[in-house]
């Protein structure tokens, strides 16, 4: 227990990094996932194919490899730089890698939501003269989102927990890496381990309950 108390401030700072990664990841992956699903259902074959390939490649690649690719491939080899400060740069490298990965899951959740919207909704939208993008934006996606709030909650919970592999993308300041550093010094400590688990549950459990509640509240009645 004293190990936990000794390392708590450091671990808390690390956990804050997990939260920061999660916030950036949630926003970016929801936007990118929405763009991807628009591509996957678009009438243009090239866009559809590109969306499908992206989702199938990224969704089936282990996250640690996606992050390593972001750090080594995009950043080191291709020179993609977010900031001249190395720690800030690697934060964004990991945040973008995580978002790119999570977006594939957001896309597929949304696509299953689109499948719950009756075909007649799109036909009615087209029949009053809305273009494809308008009907997607105003009619189809709003209903699809509401249908998949709970699954999207699960995707977000998974994403939050995935922030603990940030070190694979070269970002060594999150709570999981801090834990490893503490263990290196004092040996494995059950209290530290449990402390981090509880911290994550304090964030993820409410998200699960909240999205469940929201899903019921916003359900589209047909």
């Amino acid at each position, binding site marked *: 227990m004293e190990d936990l108390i000794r390392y708590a401030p450091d671990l808390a700072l690390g956990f804050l990094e997990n939260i920061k990664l999660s916030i950036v990841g949630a926003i970016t992956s929801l936007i990118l996932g929405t763009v991807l699903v628009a591509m996957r259902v678009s009438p243009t074959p090239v866009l559809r194919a590109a969306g499908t390939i992206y989702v199938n490649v990224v969704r089936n690649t282990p996250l640690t490899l996606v992050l390593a690719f972001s750090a080594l491939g995009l950043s080191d080899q291709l020179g993609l730089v977010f900031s001249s400060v190395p720690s800030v740069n690697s934060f964004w490298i990991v945040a973008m890698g995580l978002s790119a990965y999570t977006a594939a899951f957001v896309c597929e959740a949304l696509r299953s939501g689109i499948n719950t919207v*009756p075909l007649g909704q799109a036909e009615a939208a087209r029949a009053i003269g809305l273009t494809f993008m308008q009907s997607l934006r105003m009619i189809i996606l709003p209903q699809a989102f509401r249908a998949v709030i709970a699954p999207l909650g699960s995707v977000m919970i998974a994403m939050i927990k995935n922030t603990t592999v940030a070190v694979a993308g070269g970002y060594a300041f999150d709570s999981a890496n801090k834990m490893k550093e503490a263990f290196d010094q004092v040996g494995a400590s059950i209290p530290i381990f449990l402390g981090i688990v509880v911290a994550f549950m304090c964030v993820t459990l409410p998200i699960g309950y909240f999205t469940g509640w929201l899903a019921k509240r916003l359900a589209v009645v047909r």
Partner: protein
Amino acid sequence: MTENGDATPLVQLENVNKHFGALHVLKNINLTVSRGEVLVVIGPSGGGKSTLCRAINRLETIDDGKIIFDGQVLPAEGKALARLRSEVGMVFQSFNLFAHKTIRENVTLGPTKVRGVAKDAAGKRAMELLERVGIAAQADKYPAQLSGGQQQRVAIARALAMDPKMILFDEPTSALDPEMVQEVLDVMVGLARDGMTMMVVTHEMGFARRAAHRVVFMADGQIVEENTPDEFFTNAQTDRARDFLSKILTH
């Protein structure tokens, strides 16, 4: 038929063919709809009536032939097609009101987003139209809170809000409970009286008799017979039509 000075037909179908796989659903269809005309399409299920109706605003594509609306060949896609669709109202069997929007929003969406009408003006017009179809009191409810007949009347108001040159009705009363059929037909008869160009796929022979200028009988993907309602119901020319009428008019 009402005369409004323009003699060119509003819709012209020339040698239109369509297949669903091996099924030839539209066989060499030639048909014109004049301005102000109320055309009723009847016939057995699977005869191609709905497909014909949906082809006119290109919810169904055709394999060959030509569909001309208001002097222009139907655009294949994109903005031009969207513009054409905004001029052709459509009322569906299953209403298809936007489930996540209120009744008022259902009616104002097209004018504001497609035509760029100001929100206030669109809202005012929506209330007039909802008044006309008798649903004004329900304007802030959601579609699922309304009965089928009410929903279908809203769908008609939604189509009217675009000031269409024509309205297509694809079996508008087939999904309704019997006691709600009349309220929808009354609205449609009113539209017909006001001179709206209408193509109505229906099984409601009463409506055809009351409001139609012309009846088209379709079976097996072909137009088998075209006539005035009186002639058609009392003196059908083809065996196929007589056979169909004998089955539906005896009870």
